[in-house]
């Protein structure tokens, strides 16, 4: 019974923790501009994150060591450093965006300017990272993130013509006013948002924090293969709400308030309150995950003690990194930079960094010295190699698309 409850808790937190500021903003932007014609990219991204999260979770469960730890050892310090730099920059950008997202969510209920809220949010994130147990961070914020199901309820309540809505799923239904370059730019951004690198680092390091063993591989797979796709459905619901309410009115999404507006139209104050709680939980949870990921990555690469399963004094370097990164993130936001713009940049550059993140995972997952009989099978390798090709195309296309479309403006 306890095992089933663990599976259920893991799946629920995986659903609630799947969406972050990148998914919220990008899916709403895409829904408002392209309808559902880019949903196939969400599906592609969710399958991709499942493939690589399962590999990194399996590595953690079998070897008892996290991804970065093994990448440096298996591929050498030079490749490890490349991997570290690429993923760290993107994770730091995402951390900044998430802290900004928490401040924006609080602004919606207080009308206090988000810049004034940033120091308090950053302090709260750091206190949680320092004091709270890993399982508490994951479970409480993951479960609260489930309130984003409000988007699915709102979409149902809006009562769209489902047949008509489904007919917009085809890429051929791209609005005529939008160019294919802009369509491709948002496709890459959606893909980057779904496959953002910190998710696998957090997932594998979390496995070590929770002391997964080979016996936990089944539970881990249930979390990944059930939780992540259901989390992906939330992304589609966000895009669907924007398609039904914002697109017909010509509203382009540039603020977090606009993301929640369709829920207010459909469900009123109570529904909106539930979803804004979801904004807070999703961004605060992701801020903790990205913050921890920066600490995990650096500590694992340089080989010093890390993790929340040891006392802070035993992992002093790890906690100093968390503090420095939090101060840095708050400092960037205090310059007045728009968190939504940081989010847009982070999801696109996430796509650029994807090969640096996922190629080493595929290599380690094929090494029998680490994984023994749990090495990748043919199917996992087929998917892994296939996705590496897709990831490489997205990474190569990302920067030219930024230039050609002026960050998706047209």
């Amino acid at each position, binding site marked *: 019974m306890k095992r089933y409850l663990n599976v259920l808790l893991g799946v629920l937190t995986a659903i609630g923790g799947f969406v972050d500021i990148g998914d919220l903003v990008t899916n709403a932007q895409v829904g408002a501009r392209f309808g559902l014609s880019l949903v196939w990219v969400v599906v592609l991204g969710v399958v991709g994150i499942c493939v690589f999260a399962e590999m990194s979770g399996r590595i953690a469960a079998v070897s008892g060591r996290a991804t970065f730890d093994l990448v440096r050892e298996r591929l050498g310090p030079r490749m490890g450093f490349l991997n570290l730099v690429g993923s760290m920059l993107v994770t730091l950008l995402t951390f900044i965006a998430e802290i900004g997202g928490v401040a924006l969510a609080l602004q919606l209920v207080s*009308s206090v300017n988000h810049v004034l809220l940033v120091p308090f949010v950053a302090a709260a994130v750091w206190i949680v990272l320092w004091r709270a147990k890993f399982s508490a961070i994951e479970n409480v914020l993951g479960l609260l993130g489930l309130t984003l199901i409000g988007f699915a309820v709102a979409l149902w309540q809006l009562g769209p013509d489902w047949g008509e809505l489904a007919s917009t799923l085809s890429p051929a239904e791209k609005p005529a006013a939008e160019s294919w370059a802009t369509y491709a730019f948002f496709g890459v951004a959606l893909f980057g948002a779904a496959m953002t690198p910190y998710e696998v680092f957090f997932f594998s390091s979390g496995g070590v924090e929770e002391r997964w063993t080979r016996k936990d591989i089944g539970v881990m797979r249930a979390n990944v293969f059930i939780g992540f796709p259901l989390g992906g459905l939330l992304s589609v619901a966000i895009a669907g709400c924007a398609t039904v309410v914002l697109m017909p009115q010509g*509203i382009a999404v*540039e603020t977090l308030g606009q993301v929640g*507006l369709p829920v207010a139209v459909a469900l009123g*104050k109570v529904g909106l309150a539930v979803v804004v709680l979801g904004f807070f939980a999703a961004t605060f949870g992701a801020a903790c995950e990205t913050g921890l990921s920066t600490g995990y990555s650096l500590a694992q690469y340089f080989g010093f003690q890390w993790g929340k399963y040891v006392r802070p004094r035993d992992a002093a370097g790890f906690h100093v990194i968390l503090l420095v990164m939090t101060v840095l993130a708050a400092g960037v936001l205090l310059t007045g930079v728009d968190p939504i713009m940081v989010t847009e940049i982070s999801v696109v550059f996430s796509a650029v960094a994807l090969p640096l993140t996922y190629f080493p995972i595929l290599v380690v997952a094929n090494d029998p010295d680490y994984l023994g009989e749990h090495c990748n099978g043919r199917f996992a390798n087929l998917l892994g190699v296939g996705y590496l090709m897709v990831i490489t195309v997205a990474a190569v296309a990302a920067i030219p698309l930024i230039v050609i479309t002026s960050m998706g403006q047209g």
Partner: protein
Amino acid sequence: MMGAWRTTVVVVCVLAATSGCSLVGQPDVAAWDEQAHQAVTDATSEVATARLAVQTARDERVWSSYTLVLVADAEKAMGTVQDDTSRLQVPPGRDRDAKDLATLLDDAAAAVQDARQHAVEGRYDDPALLDVLDRAEDRLARAGSRW
């Protein structure tokens, strides 16, 4: 000695090319039209956001701070659209169009500002407010096909 000269020439050429030290081109009519169209599209989005925010608040489906943040953000974004447009170099013979565009954006900005003022005061039952926003939206929609 020749090597040093060559390096200097290359560095000067690269600096000149990258610092915009080139002939100043005439304003491009097509580019101006494209930017004018983009400005109208962006302004339409802000006015529509303000309208939907006011309508939702009027129906008591959203709390006041949420509405206030929405319309304040829309007002700020309208200001950016106006600023960006005012910096465009107008091509020869398009002065009239540029003036019309500026007037259109001023009216749209005034409508959004009006919505923000009503939101600050918590007054959403003024029927004139929605009329002002509707008129601004209509004018923007008509202008959208002009450029």
